[in-house]
């Protein structure tokens, strides 16, 4: 038995119905040129990280030559028309992710640059991820602080061989060292959520929710006084998310007091399917959700996982691929497996390029949403066969509101800290930090001075 989905009231449906704006994944899309954005002088900067599990075929990844006159590699070739809008970053590594095991310690740390605690669950521990740091440093900027997306549910169980809970391999966004953020995998429900968040609330419904949330926070406070220290942490987590929601409800119920306004409205009639027909369509729809979220400015921060760590999703839907992702990544130098590995990598880059193009098609003021974005493509391994965490495959797309010096292949000295990239991105995002994890400074040459 399934539940009928929408939590849309007739009122909100009617409100949205007057707006005939197309949505980006529909070919009939009307470019949003000039609409809404003209009122706002400087468009906000957005930031997303797209994570690919299992590393890359290193023979086909790195571009030839450095600087501006670089030549895209076979894997990066789908970025040809976007070459001036991306920066390929070579020789970064994440030192905190050495040791441990081949996957979880690397993949869970891709945005935290911290060493996770080895545990089947009892003392989960990571760092705060850079996207969440940005969200925490720019609170209340948008209806949703951030958007965590994926296409596969959290991996079940504990990996008994290496002794880590698979929770690690299923989450890259961490709001605290002990709190991974749950992801949404249903495009329809993400869309409803974006629409709901962007639509605001009537003062009355906001008032009712506030009453309700005050009540449950009261229960939590009473309970907190009765339990032991460890349990108190759980209740603190509860109170923190409920208070966060309450703040958002209050703001949504009082649009006059908020500086936020949807840059492009979201059309409730254009909600995507909740049952994508295959992996490829599913990925596209989730990337579309990032585009909708960024275009409307419902959030400015997003993370997306193409798969969980050790994902063995079958890529036989690709011509010439006969195996699953993780299987192929352990190519053992077999030429045929290497070839398939590269095809899978390249497919991921095609999806990345798709999102960049979508954002580029969205006009915003004088430029495009892509101009005002930083979209990171990242894997936590270079060669998956040896679980190598040196020379991580990293591409940054978009101009970050003009701060990113795009159109380059930047080659750093070997084992330069990945965290330096995050220092630069946080700067361009408008939430600068002195240090992030093991950073030693910003990444040279990435930002325009």
């Amino acid at each position, binding site marked *: 038995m399934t539940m009928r989905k929408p*939590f849309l009231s007739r009122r909100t449906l009617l409100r949205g119905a007057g707006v005939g704006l197309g949505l980006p994944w529909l070919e009939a899309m009307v470019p949003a040129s000039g609409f809404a954005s003209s009122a706002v002088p400087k468009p906000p900067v957005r930031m997303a990280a797209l994570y690919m599990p299992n590393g890359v075929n290193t023979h086909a990844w790195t571009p030839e030559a450095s600087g501006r006159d670089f030549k895209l590699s076979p894997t990066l070739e789908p970025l040809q028309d976007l070459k001036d809008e991306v920066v390929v970053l070579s020789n970064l590594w994440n030192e905190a992710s050495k040791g441990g095991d081949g996957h979880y310690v690397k993949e869970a740390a891709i945005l935290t640059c911290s060493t996770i605690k080895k545990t089947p*669950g009892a003392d989960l521990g990571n760092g705060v991820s850079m996207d969440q740091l940005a969200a925490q440093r720019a609170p209340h900027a948008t209806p949703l602080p951030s958007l965590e997306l994926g296409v596969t549910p959290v991996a079940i169980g504990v990996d008994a061989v290496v002794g880590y809970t698979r929770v690690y391999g299923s989450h890259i966004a961490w709001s605290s060292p002990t709190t991974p953020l749950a992801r949404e995998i249903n495009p329809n429900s993400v869309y409803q959520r974006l629409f709901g968040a962007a639509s605001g609330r009537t003062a009355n419904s906001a008032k009712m929710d506030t009453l309700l949330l005050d*009540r449950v926070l009261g229960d*939590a406070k009473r309970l907190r006084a009765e339990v032991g220290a460890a349990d108190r942490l759980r209740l603190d987590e509860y109170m923190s998310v*409920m208070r*966060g*929601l309450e703040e958002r409800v209050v703001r949504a119920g009082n649009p006059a007091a908020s500086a936020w306004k949807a840059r492009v409205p979201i059309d409730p009639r254009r909600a995507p399917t909740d049952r994508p027909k295959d992996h490829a369509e599913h990925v596209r729809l989730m990337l579309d959700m990032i585009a909708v979220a960024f275009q409307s400015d419902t959030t400015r921060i997003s993370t997306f996982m193409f798969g969980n760590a050790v994902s063995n999703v079958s890529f036989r839907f690709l011509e010439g691929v006969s195996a699953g992702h993780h299987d192929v990544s352990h190519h053992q130098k077999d030429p045929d497996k290497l070839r398939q590995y590269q095809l899978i990598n390249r497919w991921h880059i095609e999806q990345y390029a798709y999102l960049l193009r979508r954002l580029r098609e969205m006009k915003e003021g004088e430029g495009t949403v892509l101009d005002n974005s930083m979209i990171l493509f990242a894997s936590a391994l270079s060669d998956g066969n040896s679980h190598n965490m040196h020379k991580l495959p990293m591409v940054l797309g978009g101009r970050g509101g003009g701060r990113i010096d795009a159109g380059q292949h930047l080659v750093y000295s070997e084992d330069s800290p990945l965290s330096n990239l995050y220092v630069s991105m946080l700067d361009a995002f408008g939430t600068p930090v002195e240090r992030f994890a093991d950073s030693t400074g910003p990444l040279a040459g990435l930002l325009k001075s």
Partner: protein
Amino acid sequence: MSFFTTRQLRPLILLAACSLASAGPQGEYTFDDAQAFVGTYCKSCHNGKSAVGGFNLERVASAASLRTEAQKWIRANARVRNGEMPPKGSPAPPLDQRERFTGWAENALRAEACAAGITAGPAPIRRLNRDEYTATIRDLLDIHLDIGHALPADGAGGEGFDNAAETLFLSPLHSEKYMEVAKFAMDFAAKEFKSRAKVLVRKPGPGVSADQAAREIFENLLPRAFRRPVRAEEAAPYLTLFQAAQKQGQSFEESVFFSLRAALVSPLFLFRVEPPNRGAGDRPLDQYALASRLSYFLWGSMPDEMLFDIAAAGKLQDPKVLKELVRRMIRNDRSLGFAQRFTEQWLRTRELGTEKVPDAKLFPTYAADEELRSDIRFEPILFFREILLRDLPLWNLLTSKHTIGTGNLAKHYGVKLPVRQAATKQPQWVDLPEGSRRGGLLGMSAVLAVSSYPYRTSPVLRGAWILDSILGTPPPPPPPNVPALEEAHGAATPKTVRERLTKHRENPVCAGCHSRIDGLGFALENYDAIGRWRDEDAGKPVDASGELADGTKFEGPEQMKAMLLEKKDLFIRNLTAKMLGYAMGRGLTLKDSCTVDDIVAQLRENDYSAQTLVEAIVLSAPFRNQAAMPPQAPARAQKEQNKP
């Protein structure tokens, strides 16, 4: 008091696992042998004031340290077992020495812990997981919808289940979904006759004010929602909320359902909380908390009226009552949920359809037939449940004369199952014909598919799956930087999987584990990647012969299962540990392994009866008792005191 989360101790059967693989004529391992091991491989770094990582092994030099420094031992042991210590570049012990050391340490630690008596272990507050949340709302309001499907899926911790307290964290996404789903549930309940009757037990009218009626409604429903008696000061705010809703212009009913919506978002509903034990030692668990432990263990939902009544009468700690209850609860339809959640996660078959999807081009019949997929998925679940219902010996899970049959499965397996012709779609308990080769979990498609690649079988995956899920002795992780096969063996790379693995085992680094893994997997090679029988693979006859490092040889699944049956105590121990971890909703501790030993002994005396397992878990100290609240960390307590 400190609790050791000792999942790393799971392989305390490692020695036994070795004997399965490589029994050798070695003398008894002693404390002195262990000290010699530490002296040779660890002490050059972990010594004196400047011990690396602040980890000084001086303090574990006496036998008493197994008790006084157990935590240190556990950590050292886990790192040695996982091959993380000694680190790369330092002289490393060969695998057999490593395992003799860890096997000894685990047994010694456990013996020390058990000698001090079985205690309750931690019981952290635990959020209802998605399934429990759905079932609880179903039973609370009598609404039959998959109400929790909008919530994010939960990860797993502890013994590998998604009811483990430690990994049930909360995200902002949860807060939104809880609000939405609570509204949806209450809006739905407000329209359903049966739900309305459950909720609206009083209506305002002559002589009954709105406040009075609301109070009675809350007094009826809140204790059920919070699964325990509710104090006046806890219920009063809900009446205040009701009044506030009325002030906002809502009707009586709207205000009632609105206030109850809050109850569904309250931590008192969303979390399972047990009244803390502020005493010095273990005590019998509170009656209502025990009712919840029972109902979430065996039903995955809230206690029913009968459980509440027994708790209210204070009779729930009576062993006779518990024994009778366990049997009644197993017979209840709701135990199907337990069978499903436990079996699917223990065997990892829940991954079928998400992380593991058999390739549609290679297996079109499987991909096209939703009924077959469903039958395959439910076969191990229903098989497990029948064994429980019929109270059969648990080794039936390894090999059995019965199975769950449907017309689809009979066709899929090519076996003449005596399925009732009138109801071929109805899964049913049937006798297996002679020579069916389908007895036990290892003959079932779900298991065989989840331990394969989506497009082909893998003796390594299947062998490792048996070691992990069946025997509870997962292989250690592969050592870092194993040379690729080609590098190790030159250009003449063998082509078949068997040839490649044979080569692989020639490398002593690989042989240690693969000599344990591969043979078990090869014995199942007659089953293809979705579990169909095959005599040929790619035009060649299937070679289903397997051999373990100790020379044990077998051919095909029946001989391999007979070999496993010889080791059934290993299997029973693993199953017991898994089920205890599920029942407790947390990772097991060193103390818990004493409980596991105790239960295994009871099972041995009772012909491994399935209901004995459940009963023994329910009657065990960790399940029925509650540990004292751990003393607060001084630093933290200090900090709190300093707060204004």
